[in-house]
């Protein structure tokens, strides 16, 4: 029984939150890795791309709410995703046309792309703040819990409760649905194979008649879709605030690099790895120990490896260690 209670505590405070946070990171990292595999640069603007995509989703949500649309128990935000994704896709294509294409044609060095993406980041950041403001926006509606802690306790008779938020389940399900789609697309469609071929050997792809324009367009559209889903799910699950999205950039980079830049499987793996480490390393295990250890062995401290404030630092730590010891990542991405 005690063992079960301890397991529930772990599930409630580590596994469930990490699964939903990890899904969000994985989606973000997929975007970064897609951009990297086709364009060969680390896109510093990706956090803000997610932010502006979410902003669009919020506007659509508000509009739908004003129309009296509701899909309870699910949040309307889900309905807003496709519309926002289209908007984001158009935005990214315009940016590519106005900004990146020039440097691609000029075969500019990699660092130029990074600097330019910093410029795009600043502009998107300013644009979002300008339009929706820097404040917090909550736009989740529908049922809050699938099962609340108290319901769980009643149901099982255990002393610990396991709360599962609707948004957590939705996050997990949507993320996996998208990932399944993406992997299917990349593996089994001609266009998907062409994207992989282009990423693998650009010159030979041109020699095979693969149109770089088409690859570029499809890639940005996939990035837009993943960024919109990632951003909206994060906003539904937690809260939308432009600055938070900028800050998400680093854990997302961490996930992409740890998994192996350019490898979609790696991005997913990296997302969950970063999420689990962030949460597991900063969790205070005192409560778990309370169930597992005999009375006399109870520790005085919180049994916390690092304070919660260092949550971000954990992912950066992992990032730096991986960069130094295995820059290709867990799953060998692109040699670069």
């Amino acid at each position: 029984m005690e063992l079960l209670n301890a397991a529930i505590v772990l599930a409630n405070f580590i596994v469930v939150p990490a699964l939903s946070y990890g899904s969000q990171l994985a989606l973000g990292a997929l975007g970064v890795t897609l951009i990297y595999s086709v364009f060969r640069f680390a896109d510093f603007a990706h956090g803000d791309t997610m932010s502006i995509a979410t902003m669009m989703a919020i506007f659509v949500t508000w509009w739908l709410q004003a129309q009296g649309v509701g899909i309870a128990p699910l949040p309307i935000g889900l309905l807003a995703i496709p519309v926002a994704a289209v908007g984001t896709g158009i935005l990214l294509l315009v940016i590519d046309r106005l900004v990146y294409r020039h440097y691609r044609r000029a075969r500019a060095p990699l660092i130029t792309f990074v600097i330019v993406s910093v410029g795009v980041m600043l502009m998107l950041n300013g644009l979002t703040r300008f339009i929706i403001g820097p404040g917090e926006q909550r736009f989740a509606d529908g049922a809050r819990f699938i099962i609340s802690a108290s319901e769980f306790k009643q149901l099982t008779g255990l002393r610990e409760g396991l709360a599962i938020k609707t948004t957590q389940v939705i996050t997990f399900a949507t993320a996996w649905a998208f990932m399944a789609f993406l992997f299917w697309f990349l593996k089994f469609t001609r266009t998907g194979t062409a994207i992989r071929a282009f990423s693998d050997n650009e010159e030979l792809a041109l020699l095979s008649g693969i149109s770089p324009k088409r690859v570029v367009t499809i890639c940005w559209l996939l990035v837009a879709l993943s960024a919109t889903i990632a951003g909206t799910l994060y906003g539904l699950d937690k809260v939308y605030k432009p600055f938070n999205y900028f800050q998400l950039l680093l854990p997302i980079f961490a996930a992409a690099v740890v998994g192996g830049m350019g490898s979609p499987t790696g991005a997913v793996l990296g997302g969950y790895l970063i999420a689990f480490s962030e949460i597991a390393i900063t969790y205070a295990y005192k409560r778990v120990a309370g169930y597992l250890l005999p009375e006399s062995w109870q520790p005085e401290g919180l049994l916390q490896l690092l304070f919660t404030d260092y949550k971000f630092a954990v992912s950066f730590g992992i990032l730096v260690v991986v960069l130094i010891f295995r820059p290709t990542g867990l799953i060998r991405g692109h040699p670069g």
Partner: protein
Amino acid sequence: METPSYDQKVILLFSYGRYILTFLAATELTGGYGSTNIIEDISLSVERGQIAVIVGPNGAGKSTAMKAIFGMITLRSGQICFKDKDISRLPPQKRVANGMAFVPQTRNIFPALTIAENLSMGAYLRKDNITAAVQQIYELFPILGERQNQLAGELSGGQRQQVALGRALMTSPELLMLDEPTAGVSPVVMDEVMERIMEIAGTGVAVMMVEQNARHALQIADIGYVLVQGRNRFTGSGPDLLANREVRTSFLGG
């Protein structure tokens, strides 16, 4: 003098009866990377069913000449006519659509894709069913059929060359350009590759290749070009060049 247009050529053909329409005619190509010219005034041509071989010392601009024909470097002057259309300004993928195929010397496969995917990418522009074409490639290179779901990057050097050739053939090209197809393969495989190339030419495909093993390659060449320092030095049929004393001593090692 400017190169005559197609119409002019037709007129020339009828009025003088000696101007021959060439399948691929690259005339007086000049170009290179950046501001320096690597090739200067190079002219190359090949007919259907022929094998043209380009030889010459290192740095003679052999590969650059091939890339120029395929539109992978910027030309400063010169003209490329293929099937009597001026293709000098087309991007590479349009040339592929026109029936040209190119196998670079290095990085000529998609290592992270399976063999089957490599072949399907070769046929990217084809709208028809490619199953039959893939079967043909597997007949030509049986080992590829056996390992179709293996990643191309895991293959040996000779097998990679076969994948590279197979990918290029998937477009059913009318002109096949090969940059050192036997680089880094064993002598046994080399003979086999040469044999396959002759087979391919036998089906009416024009083949243009750069070869390091000049002696070997010139033996199967209908026309041979010796390039030196970015310029044409000798041109002639394979046997002629092999018989030429100067070519032999300077470029074939005696």
